[in-house]
C-alpha cells in the first residue's frame, strides 16, 4: 500500500513523539512518509515530503489553509490527493486538519458535511462511535442522518460490528424529547431504510455497549467527549490515589492485573484518535497531546481503513440514499 502521510509537526509533543510513533509503525511493516521541514532531526531514515510551514494550534483553521499553503498539514492532505500517500494523520490543529482534508481531498459526492467520529471506550465491548465530535457546531437534521450512515460504516469496518445500532443523543429516550433539531432528526432517522435506528439515547448510554453509533451536533459531541475525558481521568486519578494508601497496597497488587487492561481500554491513546468521515480519503485526527503510542495506533487505524476501503463503503452508503 501507499505510505501513510504523518504530519511530523502537529501536536503538543511534536516532533519527538510523532517521529517515535512513526518509526514504530514503520518497524511494524506499515509504510510511512513524514511531512515536515527539510533537515528534520530524528526521522530515522523515513522518507520526508518537505513542508516549510506549520499551522499552529491557535491559527484560524479555514484561513490558515490558504495562508500557509506550504504547511505540513496542507502538504499531507495534498499527498493523499495526489496519490503519494494512502491516508494522512495529524495531532495538530483539529479545525485546520479538517479544512486541509476537505479542501485538498474533497468531499465524497452527496455528503453535506464531513463529521469527526470518535471511538468512545466501552469496557468489555466494542467502542461506541460518537459523531460529530466537533466538525460542525450547528447541524441540520438531514446531516445527522448522513452522520448515522457514515458512522455505521466506520463502526462496521473498524470494530467489526455487523449491524450497528444507531442512537440519537438527546435528553430522554422518548421520541418527543429534545429540541426541534432532535425531533426532526428522530423522524428522519426512523424513516430511513437500511439502518438499525434504536431511537434516542442519553449521555449515560455512551459507555454501556447498548448502542454502537451515537449521532449529535458537533458542539454537543465535543462537550460530551471532553466531559468523558475529564471524568475518566478524574476516576483513574482517584483510584490510583486510593491504591497508593499503605493499607490498600496488598489489595492494589491483587487487583492491578485486572485493572491495567481496563485502563488500556479506557486510554484514548489505544484508539489513536478520531477520523474525519465524508472526505474523499482517510484522515485521522489524533489528540493534541498524542504520545508515540497514540500515533502508532492512529497509523494502524489509517492502514485498516485504507485496506477495508472505508471511503468506498461510505460512498456507496451515501449514493444509496441521495
Amino acid at each position, binding site marked *: 500500500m501507499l505510505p501513510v502521510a504523518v504530519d511530523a509537526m502537529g501536536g503538543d509533543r511534536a516532533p519527538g513523539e510523532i517521529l517515535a510513533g512513526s518509526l514504530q509503525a514503520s518497524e511494524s511493516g506499515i509504510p510511512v512518509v513524514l511531512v515536515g521541514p527539510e533537515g528534520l532531526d530524528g526521522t530515522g531514515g523515513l522518507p520526508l515530503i518537505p513542508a516549510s510551514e506549520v499551522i499552529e494550534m491557535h491559527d484560524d483553521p*479555514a*484561513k490558515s*489553509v*490558504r*495562508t500557509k499553503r506550504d504547511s505540513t498539514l496542507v502538504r499531507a492532505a495534498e499527498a493523499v490527493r495526489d496519490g503519494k500517500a494512502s491516508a494522512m494523520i495529524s495531532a495538530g490543529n483539529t479545525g485546520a486538519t479538517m479544512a486541509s482534508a*476537505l*479542501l485538498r481531498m474533497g468531499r465524497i459526492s452527496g455528503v453535506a458535511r464531513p463529521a469527526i467520529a470518535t471511538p468512545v471506550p466501552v469496557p468489555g465491548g466494542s467502542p461506541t462511535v460518537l459523531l460529530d465530535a466537533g466538525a*460542525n457546531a*450547528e447541524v441540520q437534521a438531514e446531516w445527522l442522518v448522513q452522520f448515522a450512515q457514515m458512522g455505521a460504516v466506520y463502526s462496521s469496518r473498524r470494530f467489526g460490528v455487523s449491524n450497528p445500532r444507531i442512537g440519537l443523543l438527546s435528553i430522554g429516550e422518548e421520541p418527543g424529547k429534545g429540541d426541534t433539531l432532535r425531533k426532526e432528526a428522530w423522524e428522519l432517522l426512523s424513516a430511513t431504510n437500511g439502518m438499525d435506528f434504536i431511537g434516542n439515547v442519553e449521555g449515560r448510554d455512551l459507555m454501556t455497549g447498548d448502542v454502537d453509533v451515537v449521532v449529535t451536533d458537533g458542539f454537543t459531541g465535543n462537550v460530551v467527549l471532553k466531559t468523558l475525558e475529564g471524568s475518566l481521568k478524574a476516576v483513574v486519578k482517584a483510584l490510583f490515589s486510593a491504591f497508593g494508601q499503605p493499607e490498600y497496597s496488598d489489595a492494589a497488587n491483587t487487583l492491578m492485573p485486572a485493572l491495567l487492561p481496563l485502563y488500556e481500554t479506557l486510554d484514548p491513546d489505544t484508539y489513536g484518535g478520531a477520523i474525519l468521515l465524508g472526505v474523499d480519503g482517510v484522515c485521522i485526527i489524533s489528540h493534541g497531546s498524542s504520545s508515540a503510542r497514540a500515533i502508532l495506533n492512529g497509523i494502524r487505524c489509517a492502514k485498516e481503513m485504507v485496506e477495508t476501503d472505508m471511503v468506498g463503503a461510505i460512498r456507496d452508503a451515501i449514493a444509496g440514499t441521495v
Partner: protein
Amino acid sequence: MAADRPAILDIVRRHLAEILEIDAVQISEMQSFRDDLGADSIALIELVDSLEQEFSASLPDFQFDDDDLEGLVTVGDAVDYVVRAHGG
C-alpha cells in the same frame, strides 16, 4: 475579458449549491452566506477555492485576497469580487 455579471452569478450559485448540497434556485444575490444559507467559514473557503479554480482559465492570476474574505457577506459580494477581477 468583459464581465458578464449574470453568468458569473450563475457560476457562483452553482458552486455554492454543490458545496451546501442545496438547489441552486434557492440561492439569491441578497442572501447572506452565514445567516441565510448556513455557510460556515470552511464552506466559504471551499467556495473561494472552487471559484479560483473555475476562473483560472479566463483569468490566470485570479485569486481572492485573504484580507478581503471577511468582506464577503452576501452572495452578491462574491459576484462583485469576481466581476471586478474581470475588469467589470
